[in-house]
């Protein structure tokens, strides 16, 4: 009895249980929130959840495993096209099947990319994934096989209609928001568990010092491939959700700028932090809303209004690297640490009133 109790304790209390509790809390808050706000806000929150999934995956790869990928926009395209092809010709696959298919297809492709990426370091890896992002000849392939991929105008995606038990007048935006929230929460819980366990420690060890990791018995290449596959699967899931969200999957939606926006999200939020991915996604969704509102009030020309968000992201990336490389989550952590140190209740000991500003932010 005691043994069972302690085993239960060990299972539930430290991490998995905490993550589940956190997820339940988030789910309740999001459900309440989404039924209070209008369809337009639901629509925007859906985008936050979608970007959060992709950014969390990218952050695992880049922030925690040290592999920079500029090709995640292309991986999202693979997920989106998988979903769109399944839903073509009015096939009524359930949402969960479509999403899992997208995860599976990008995961499999991620294995291939992962093996190539595991052999590359630093600038070579960045350059190779940049080539991937630019070279995936999406418009050309889509045009050449127009009957399959629908050419430049892409494939339209039938929305997933809410189930009957929710009532006839349940807004479809809220239904899609729920799907995206569920996907995001499940992704976050799974990733959080992965990162708390041995794989997460292996990711960080490989990032920090490959030779030391190898000496400690970690298979460096396999760890890197695993990180790439998990990350690609997240991108695929996000791509499939994006297909539902936009209602159309076209080559123009998956440019290099998309990949760079995901990098912006993880840098703003905080490299290596899952919570940071959420912060970053909030920024990605709400900055364009703010700037378009501002542009219409100032009646700026469309060439300015359309590009203002990207200019801001670019500026943020540069400034963040100069002054705040740990992002929002890093800043929050520092404020918390400062508060703890300043006003006493330091959990892990530590000198009162002294903050180690140079301490690299712990991960997760």
């Amino acid at each position, binding site marked *: 009895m005691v043994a069972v109790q302690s085993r239960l304790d060990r299972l539930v209390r430290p991490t998995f249980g905490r993550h589940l509790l956190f997820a339940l809390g988030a789910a309740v808050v999001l459900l309440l929130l989404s039924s209070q706000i209008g369809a337009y806000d639901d629509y925007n929150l859906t985008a936050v959840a979608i970007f959060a999934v992709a950014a969390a995956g990218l952050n695992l790869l880049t922030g925690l495993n040290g592999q920079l990928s500029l090709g995640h926009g292309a991986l999202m395209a693979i997920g989106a096209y998988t979903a769109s092809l399944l839903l073509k010709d009015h096939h009524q696959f359930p949402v969960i099947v479509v999403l899992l298919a997208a995860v599976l297809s990008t995961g499999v492709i991620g294995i291939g990319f992962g093996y190539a990426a595991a*052999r590359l370091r630093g600038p070579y890896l960045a350059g190779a994934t940049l080539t991937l992002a630019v070279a995936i000849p999406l418009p050309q392939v889509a045009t050449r096989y127009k009957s399959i991929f629908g050419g430049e105008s892409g494939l339209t995606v039938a929305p997933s209609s809410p189930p009957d038990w929710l009532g006839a007048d349940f807004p479809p935006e809220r239904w899609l928001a729920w799907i995206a929230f569920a996907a995001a929460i499940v992704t976050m819980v799974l990733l959080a568990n992965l990162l708390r366990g041995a794989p997460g420690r292996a990711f960080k060890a490989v990032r920090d010092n490959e030779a030391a990791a190898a000496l400690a018995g970690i298979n460096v290449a396999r760890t890197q491939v695993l990180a790439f596959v998990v990350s690609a699967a997240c991108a695929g899931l996000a791509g499939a959700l994006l297909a539902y969200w936009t209602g159309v999957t076209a080559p123009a939606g998956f440019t290099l700028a998309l990949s760079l926006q995901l990098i912006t999200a993880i840098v703003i939020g905080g490299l290596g932090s899952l919570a940071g991915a959420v912060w970053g996604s909030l920024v990605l969704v709400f900055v364009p809303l703010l700037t378009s509102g501002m542009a219409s009030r100032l009646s700026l020309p469309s060439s300015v209004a359309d590009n203002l968000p*990207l*200019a801001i992201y670019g500026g943020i990336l540069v400034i*963040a690297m*100069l002054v705040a490389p740990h992002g929002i989550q890093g800043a929050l952590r520092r404020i918390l640490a400062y508060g703890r140190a300043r006003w006493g209740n330091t959990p892990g000991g530590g000198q009162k009133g002294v903050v180690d500003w140079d301490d690299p932010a712990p991960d997760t």
Partner: protein
Amino acid sequence: MSRFFVLTLNGVTQGAIYAAMALALVMIWRATKVINFAQGAMAMFTTYLAVFAIEHGTPYWVGFLVALVSGLLLGAIVERVIVRPVESAPALNVVILTLGLLLFLEALAPMAFGGQIRSFPPAFSIVGLRLGTSQVPFSPFDLFTFGSVVAVMLLLLVLFQKTDLGLRMRASAFNPEVSRLLGIRVGRMLTLGWALASLVGALAGVLIAPSLLLYPTFMDDVLVFGFTGAVLGGLDSAVGAVVGGLLMGFALTYVGGYFGSDLETVGALVILIAVLMVRPSGLFSVQRVRQV
């Protein structure tokens, strides 16, 4: 005239431009161990400045000069203002920084110059030269492109090999600490290195703009081809970069000519992956392969 001959002549011109891009990347890599992913965007921006000048009534050559001088200044500013402070930061941060600059410039250009796609005038006729009775598919502008890239490379070669300044620049890149002890103003040398590299990139932009159209992302492909050329050459070698860039020019025109021009970028991807898999440090690099 055989198709192969035509493609080869095209390859020389394209290759010269990719070689310039590759050389710009390698110069910056050697000076500061940074891959400047914003190189293409910087060249795009200076090309926009050139077209802006030309559209406001200045002759072509003034626009050409505007591009080169603004390239020089932009490179110096970028190094001094945003790259210098992250000198000792992790490599990942610096890469992200240059990506941010890429995103920023590609958004700034349409904001400043308007979003419409433009054409860019060539300096000389783009009609093929006549040799006797037959027309060669090599125009005066192609000749100018190839010639100006070669001229710039020769000037750089003289600068780096024959002058005191070039020696100081090489020393700063090779060992900043010792150079500093010897009284070299290492910071200035790095700024100068970035400025010169950016000038070479700007040259590539002005030269390729007439055959592509001018839009904010028009240099993305050129950057990728130049990067692939630089990797072919081993990233560390200026000669390797030029050879790699020329090889890319030939390879891509053959791919485009025989398999369809929409496959050029895929060709670059295949070449890059193949080289990185077989010889991760490039064809011409003498550095030892990294060991784990």
